[in-house]
Each structure stands twice: as C-alpha cells, then as structure tokens.
C-alpha cells in the first residue's frame, strides 16, 4: 500500500527543505516516490503545501481529501486548513506555533483560539510539539523544521534509514551539526 504524507506551513518555514530530505531518504530506501509542491508567488508568508506519496508504484502525485496517512503542520492555522486531507485513523503532527496572516495583523479577523485543544479532541492520533521552542533551546531556532522531521520519521516508522547521510547531502556543512541534533531531538519526542 502506498503512503501519503502532506506537509503544510507558511512560506519561509522550511517545509520545502524538510520535504526534500524526506523524499531523498525514501528514494534511497528504494521506494517509488512522487512529490508535488504548490507554493504561492515570490512573496513570503503565503500558505505552502507539499504532497509526498511513496510505495511500490505511485500514480497521481496529488493527495486528496481524507487520504493523508500523516499530516504535518508547521503552523496551527495551516493544520486547520488542511485537516480535511487527513485519513480516518491517520496521524496529525502539529507544531504549536502561530504566524499571523494580514487579516489578523490588521485586526479584521481574530486568530482562532484553542486550536490545539480542538485538534487533540477530534483526532485520536495527534502529536503536538513545541518545535520552535525546542529548536530555540537547542541553540538554533531555524532548525525547528528538522525537529519536526524527526517526529515525522518516527511516526512513519522509518527510523532505520540513514537520515544523517541524507542531511549531509542537502544541508550546508556549517549548520549540519545543529540540524542533526534537532533531528535526534525530534526522534526522541
């Protein structure tokens, strides 16, 4: 059976690098993989989604409603936006982090309250993570995406693959160590 992972977040949060590492790891393990990315225009701050499907043979690159085995949200409102893509019984990983959109900043809309409470109530298998705080404690706030990758890899049961090697290929030398540390922190959650 093919597996589907949907990564959602806000432009600039590093979802794309995270997806790349995941896809490369899966390819190295011999899976057929398709990855589809929809990102807005050049500006920062739009909603960003990546669909990754893997298995013996993947046809359509799109993950439809109710099809994602794992939905991983780098921001809480994005978890709300794409919740309908999660499969019944699927795993929701959500970073307890808020990024305000223009409408919230200017006060025309309120940022929804108690998102985490509702999500944990609705979805049996929800993993909530203070990814940004964890990364900050580790000394590099920008590695929050890799903390999340660690959690994701564990949720997919793919710990046995050589992720450190994949990261070596895709992450610049000078921040590699920080990212490996972040990844291990995620795995241990």
């Amino acid at each position: 059976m093919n597996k589907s992972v949907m990564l959602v977040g806000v432009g600039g949060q590093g979802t794309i690098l995270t997806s790349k590492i995941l896809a490369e790891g899966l390819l190295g393990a011999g899976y057929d993989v398709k990855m589809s990315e929809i990102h807005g225009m050049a500006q920062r701050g739009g909603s960003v989604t990546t669909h990754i499907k893997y298995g013996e043979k993947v046809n359509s690159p799109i993950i439809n409603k109710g099809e994602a085995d794992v939905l991983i949200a780098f921001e809480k409102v994005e978890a709300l936006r794409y919740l309908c893509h999660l499969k019944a019984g699927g795993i929701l990983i959500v970073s307890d982090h808020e990024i305000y959109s223009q409408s919230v900043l200017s006060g025309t809309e309120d940022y929804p309250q108690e998102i985490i409470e509702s999500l944990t109530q609705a979805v049996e298998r929800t993993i909530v993570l203070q990814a940004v705080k964890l990364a900050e404690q580790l000394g590099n706030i920008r590695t929050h995406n890799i903390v999340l990758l660690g959690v994701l890899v564990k949720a997919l049961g793919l710990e046995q693959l050589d992720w450190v090697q994949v990261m070596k290929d895709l992450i610049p030398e000078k921040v590699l160590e920080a990212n490996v540390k972040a990844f291990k922190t995620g795995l241990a959650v």
Partner: protein
Amino acid sequence: MKKFLTGNEAIARGAYEAGCLLAAAYPGTPSTEILENISQYSEIYSEWSPNEKVALEVASGASIAGSRALAAMKHVGLNVASDPMFTMAYTGVNGGLVVVNADDPGLHSSQNEQDNRLVAPHAKVLMLEPSDGQECLDFVKAAFALSEEFDSPVLFRVTTRVCHSKSIVEIGERVEAGIKPYVKDPAKYVMSPGNALKRHPVVEEKLLRAKDYSETCPFNRIEWGNRKIGIITSGISYQHAKEVFGEQASYLKLGMTYPLPEQKIRDFAAQVDTLYIIEENDPYLEQQVRSLGISCIGKERIPICGELNAEIVRRALLGETEPKTYQVSQKPTARPPVLCAGCPHRPLYVALKKLKDIVVTGDIGCYTLGMVPPLSMLDTVICMGAGISSGIGFEKVNRMAGRKEKIFGIMGDSTFFHSGITSLIDAVYSNSNMAIILLDNSTTAMTGHQENPGTGVNLMGQPAPVIDLVNVVKAVGVKPENIRIVDPYDLAETEKAVQEAYASQELFVVVTKQPCALMKDVQKKREGLYCYSDAEKCKKCKACLRTGCPAIAMKNGTIHIDKAQCNGCTLCQQVCKFDAIAKVGE
C-alpha cells in the same frame, strides 16, 4: 542514472540530451524553471526574451538556421506567441523546433484557465502530452525528431502538476544533433500570400501523415485490464485515472494528442463496454471521440472547471460520496499572498490611496497585490500590457461621459519591456492624458526574480547592456517635464509626484526606482535595519497598520513591529503623525 526530477527539470534535461542548441522563453508559472534549468547547460545558448512572441521568433530563426531550438511559456504566453506559431506551421522547420506550453488548471498562479490543447488543431501543429517526469524527458527528445520528420513545430503541452511534481527519471547522455546546412528557400520560408497559399496544402498533407504516425506511435498505447470499462485519457489525468481504476479498467493512454489516432480510438472503443473520457478542463478528447460517432461519458460527469484529481474522478464516475474527514469548529483565517514587508511597491499605493476620484488600471506582477485590503487600489487587471492600454480606452470614454476620475495605469519593469512599450507609444500617439506609474524594482519579481532587459545581466549570468526604462519613456515622446523619477521609500517625494500626475492635463509618467526587497543583495545591504514603535508616544491611530505591511501588528492594543521581517523602509515611520516610530541602523 536515475534522478528525482520535476517535470520542468526533465524537459530541460531532455532538450539537453536531444542536442538542442538554443532555448528562449519569457518566465511564467508553471513553465519558468524549464529555462532556468536549461541555462545550467553551457552547450545551449539560452535567453530570457522580453516576451513570448520574441522568444518563439528567436527559436524559429535558430531552427531555420539549422539547429534544434526550444521556446517555453505559460499558457497565456502562447496567446502572445500565437502569431509566429501559426505561421511556423506553414514554413515548417529546419532543425527541430519544440514549443513548450504549460497550462495551469486550477489557476494556481494565472489569470485564466485556458486549455491550450485546443491550439494544436487550430495552429495545425503536432502535439505531445507527457504525464510524468520520465515522459517529459523521453517525449521532448522525441519531439525534436518528430519536428524534423514532419517539418513542423511540435507543441509540447504540460500542466502545473506535471511541471512541478518530482518523480524518478532515468537520464541519458547528450547526443549532438549539430547544425544542419541552411539552404535558401523563399518558397518555404518567405510567407507572402502567394507562397503561403502553396504551403497550406503541404500543411494538410503533413497532418495526414502525422495522423498515420499517431496510429502506430509508441506514445499512444493501450493497457488492457478489465474490458467492462475503457478509459481514454492523457497527461496528468492518466495518473488520476490509474489511481482510481487500477486494473479494473482498460486504458487508451494518449501521449500524442494531435493528430489523434482515429482508428486506434475506434478499435479500443469497440472492445470495451463503457467508455469514459477522463480529461482536465475542456472536452478536447471527448469532442474528437464523439465526432467519430462513438458514444462516451465525459464532461456530463467530470467538471470542466478547476484542477482534476482522483477524488473528483471517483465521485464523478463511481458515484462515491465525499470522504468523511475530521472536523473542528474553528475556521482557518485566510492567508492570501501580500506585498512583502519593505516592498518598494507599497508606498506608491499608500500615496495613491490619498487621491479621490481615480480609476486604477492595473497589470500583472507583484504589484497586482495592491488589490488586497487594506490597500484595495486596483480597478482592473486583465493581461500584461493592459495596465496602460486599457487605461487609454477608459480615459477616452470617461471624457465622453463627462466623468472626472483621473486614470492611473500601473505597470512593473519586466511587464513594461514585455508589452508596455507599445502601449506607451499608443498613450503618446492617442494624446492620452492618463497618468502612468512604472514600478521599477529591477527584476521580474513575481515569478522568482528573473533577469530582464533592464537588469544588466542575462539568463546565462553574463553582463548585458542595460535598457534604461526612463530613456525609453523619453524616446517614445513623453515630454521630459511630465516625467518624474522617485525613490518610493521617500513617501513625500512619491506623493508629490503622484499629485502632479493627478493634476496634469497631459500624459504623465512617474517611475519609482527601488529594487525588490527580497533580492539577496538588497537583503544583505539592509540587514540590521528595522523600525520599532514607542508605546508611550503611540496614539493607536492605526495609520501604520493601514499600509498593510505584514511586519506591523496590533497585539493586545499595542503596535508591534516584527524585527525579523522589517527591512527599515520607514514607510510606517513616515505615515505616523505622532513620531511614535523610530528607525534603527543606517
């Protein structure tokens, strides 16, 4: 060797392997990365042309001169390039000529959802449609060969999901195709009416030959499974169909979709009980199938509008209901794209917003986001160039109607070079008294910061002559006293120029000059610059919020500026009447 490539990367690789020597394009989502990737191969001359028509004409010249050549564009770009395209069908080629056209079903980043498969029969050119990365590579190589064999440009039609999805692709080596001799042949290449009249039957004959080829070619294949259901499909729709029906159906998977293999379609249809046509957007295949007298199920079930996916196919053809999904009571807040913090386009809109009685004819680029609240400044956006030209017409009718609104036409630098210059010529020639704002941010920002004729660098990364936008404005005849060049980060200066334009009875042009805030060197230069607000002085008037800068927020009743996003453009400081915002860094 196997690689994990997007469709666009695979197309670039295919062109390289096919021995292509020249590639030209104008950027446009989802096609942009094709040329960006081709430019990595030093064997291929590549360029960003000012627009798609120029790109295709450059490629056509290369082809006639004897090399394999490629032009790439988004779907609306082919509208612009239609003129050379339709007549290249008559002249034919010398070296293979491939025209990559990327449609955007679902309008991820476009102004319409046109289905350019319909162009192939209209322009009378062959068409190939890949459905994944491997086919992108293989089909592009084949397209060059077919172009030469049938003496025709080949339309290579892809869609956003093919362009932007990554899959595993087996790559090969480059095989040089060389440069064929050029033999003068005006009867073939000079399309005077007399010559073209003689070429038309040649075109029709070519299409008949291509149709025979289509019957047996490897791109149109039947995959037998259960024969109760037969599916005719192409492109990404094939992937959706396979996902839904798997072995439970038989497929006629079409890779060459013009000319279509009529006999093969008949044979396939005759061997299945129910025939479905699964295709995205228009009933292109369906109409051809029906015209053969074959009954089928298509658009009466599958929607014309929007991007297709497996779930829609399931609901349409298997009668499945919408899947049950998790639900919570909170609704996500909208997150539409907005102009970046520190965007040099923003102050212009802040200045315009002060004027009463204006109509703003907009254009396409980052500045289209001037339509988003709280700026909400644009009246119209149609296509590239229309920011000026539709303003000309609007102003004429306004005058007839005795209306007083001043017309402001807005356009960016890349769009000006693309199709704004001819519009500006008309503004001069037609004695328009509209005001034109040219937002020069020294890049083609919206599609990811491509070089353009004003940037001094070309696609291959080499220095290039700078076409000075202001010189062009002067050269076409805008009076020098009616031209203002301003730094948009200076709000007072910008407002003054905009007010002069408003008051002017003659054609007036304001050029704002300040590079896009997202460009790497700009970010580096402005590192450490930011503004902060002083809660003691702040009167909570919200004027700073009304600029729509995403770095500014009202949190628990106080104004907060996000240091990480802010680039110290000082727009907020300049709109604050209470001196409550200060700048850090120089």
